[in-house]
């Protein structure tokens, strides 16, 4: 919990990792990719405040002690949600698998939720592994990496029939939240890995599931916004938005927040630190203090008040994950009602000018 000016904020870090990118875990023959990947992540860390930068060796693999300290003791986080990412093509034991994350979850069940994952291209064997993971860790969510390579395949879409089979099964197994990585990194060739139209279709076809678009579709944030405004079960995952822009480019951060507040709204935005690219401490404190900069450039964006910040920092995710929130951190019923239906009306005709 974070307290500032008499207000208490319940913090859910909806997107974080416990990865192993140390050289011992690099796949022989694919070292350049394993190395390139983690160096790319490390450069992202460079966009945060200087005092939070780590040497690459430490960044490749943090200890359990460090993670617990940076998330919960220093980082104000109440509950953290692991988003498992495999990348087994380059990392022998995976980058951060359900099992790796699950080991910490077992040890600190009140602190963590562990999300599983599946890859529809893994077929029946993948289905069995997914079912086993669900049985073991009882996750309410999965993280999907549609641009991940798998053998000959360079990616998939949520709308692929195989993926629908997994989504249907996930729903039967009690999964509610589908976190889809639609953002920077990994190598889309000519296939458009940032394209969010598959989320649009899947969200319509699976009304019982929530779709959290991680990194808000960067570098195609506008496509994400135009889509999310149409779909009540599509959410914005703020990791990278906060970490990558709030400190490095505050004015652009403000504009991205303005766009998200306008098109998506404060009820459907979720804070995620993307640890350990960035630690949560400065992000949580910065978001609580955040406001639009002076200037008319921001006049037509909805304002974000204390209640909205509470929702984004924890209450929205707590709802999606059935996390109990202490009464002192709740907000009154009126202000938690969905906001600004007027904004949604404006964008009914999305065919107009959509490039």
């Amino acid at each position, binding site marked *: 919990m974070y307290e500032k000016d008499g207000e208490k904020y319940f913090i859910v870090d909806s997107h974080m990792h416990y990865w192993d990118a140390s050289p011992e875990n690099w796949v022989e023959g694919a070292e*350049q*990719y394993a190395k*390139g*990947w983690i*160096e*790319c992540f*490390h*450069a*992202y860390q*460079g*966009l945060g405040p200087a005092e939070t930068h780590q040497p690459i060796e430490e960044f490749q693999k943090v200890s359990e002690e460090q993670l617990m300290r940076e998330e919960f003791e220093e980082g104000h986080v109440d509950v953290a949600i692991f988003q498992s990412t495999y990348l087994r093509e380059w990392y022998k034991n995976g980058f951060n698998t359900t099992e790796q994350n699950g080991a910490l979850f077992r040890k600190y069940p009140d602190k963590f939720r562990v999300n599983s994952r599946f890859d529809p291209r893994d077929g029946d064997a993948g289905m069995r592994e997914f079912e086993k993971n669900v049985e073991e860790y009882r996750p309410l969510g999965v993280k999907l990496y549609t641009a991940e*390579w798998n053998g*000959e395949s*360079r990616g998939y879409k949520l709308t692929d029939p195989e993926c629908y089979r997994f989504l249907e099964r996930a729903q039967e197994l009690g999964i509610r939240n589908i976190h889809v990585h639609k953002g*920077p*990194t*990994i*190598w*889309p*060739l*000519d*296939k*458009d890995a940032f394209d969010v139209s598959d989320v649009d279709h899947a969200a319509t076809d699976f009304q019982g599931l929530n779709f959290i678009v991680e990194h808000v579709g*960067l*570098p*195609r*944030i*506008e496509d994400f*916004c*135009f889509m999310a405004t149409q779909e009540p079960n599509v959410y914005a995952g703020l990791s*990278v*938005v906060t970490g*990558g*822009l709030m400190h*490095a*480019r505050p004015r*652009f951060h403000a*504009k*991205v927040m*303005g*766009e998200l507040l*306008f*098109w998506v709204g404060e009820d459907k935005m979720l804070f995620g630190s993307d640890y350990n690219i960035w630690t949560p401490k400065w992000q949580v404190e910065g978001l609580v203090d955040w406001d639009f900069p002076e200037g*008319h450039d921001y006049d037509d964006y909805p304002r974000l008040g204390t209640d909205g910040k509470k929702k984004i920092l924890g209450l929205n995710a707590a709802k999606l994950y059935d996390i109990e929130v202490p009464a002192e951190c709740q907000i009154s019923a009126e202000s938690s009602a969905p906001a600004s239906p007027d904004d949604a009306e*404006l*964008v009914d*005709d999305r065919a*107009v*000018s*959509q*490039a």
Partner: protein
Amino acid sequence: MTVTSDTPPTTQVGGVWEALRTVRDPELDADVVSLDFVASCSISDDGVAHVRLRLPTYFCAPNFAFLMVADAWDAVSQVPGLQDVDVELIDHFASDAINAGVAARAGFVTSMAGSEVGEAVSELDGLRRNFTERALMAGTDLVVRPLMAAGATPEQVVAMTLGEVPASADLRRLRERRRELDIPADDDAPLVVDPVGRTVGLEALPLHLRKARSYQVGVDANTSICRGQLAARYGL
């Protein structure tokens, strides 16, 4: 440095830099020189221009990387007096495939076939068109927003022609993007059009401009992240 042609070497290297300024990152709608993507640029004694391009990350999308390397090759090849051109993408997971493919004029699909990077199934013309359309939308925001801030009404904006807008770098760029999309860009052409060139009516204008702004914010945010990554990577 000496060169075989009569053109003074400094002018000639200057010409190569000038050519590189016409090469842009389609996603960021900015040229590779101002983005600092040119790691080095020189002309060797045998009259060959050597250009090294670098990108913000090892994993930057290979399709965009290919476009930039190919465009750089084409642009530098137009510089008079050069014996040959050598453009190389460095520090990228697909460097080998891209460099070899561009040098052989092989096209994206052929270049990627059989490479470690993987197969490509289509050429990149559609991608380029898609991003030029986005640039048109983003550019519309840059040009129209100041007009409205200065008091232009929606009625005035929908009736305006390009010739009625005060000259600016943003306007010049918007005209260029429109020409690339085969959308009229002369003085008497309407100021506000959609990405296929249709005029936008009064009723549709607010949403059109709202979207145009979103595109511009997207470009700004991406550019910020890319510049930050490049600076972190190369200690700039």
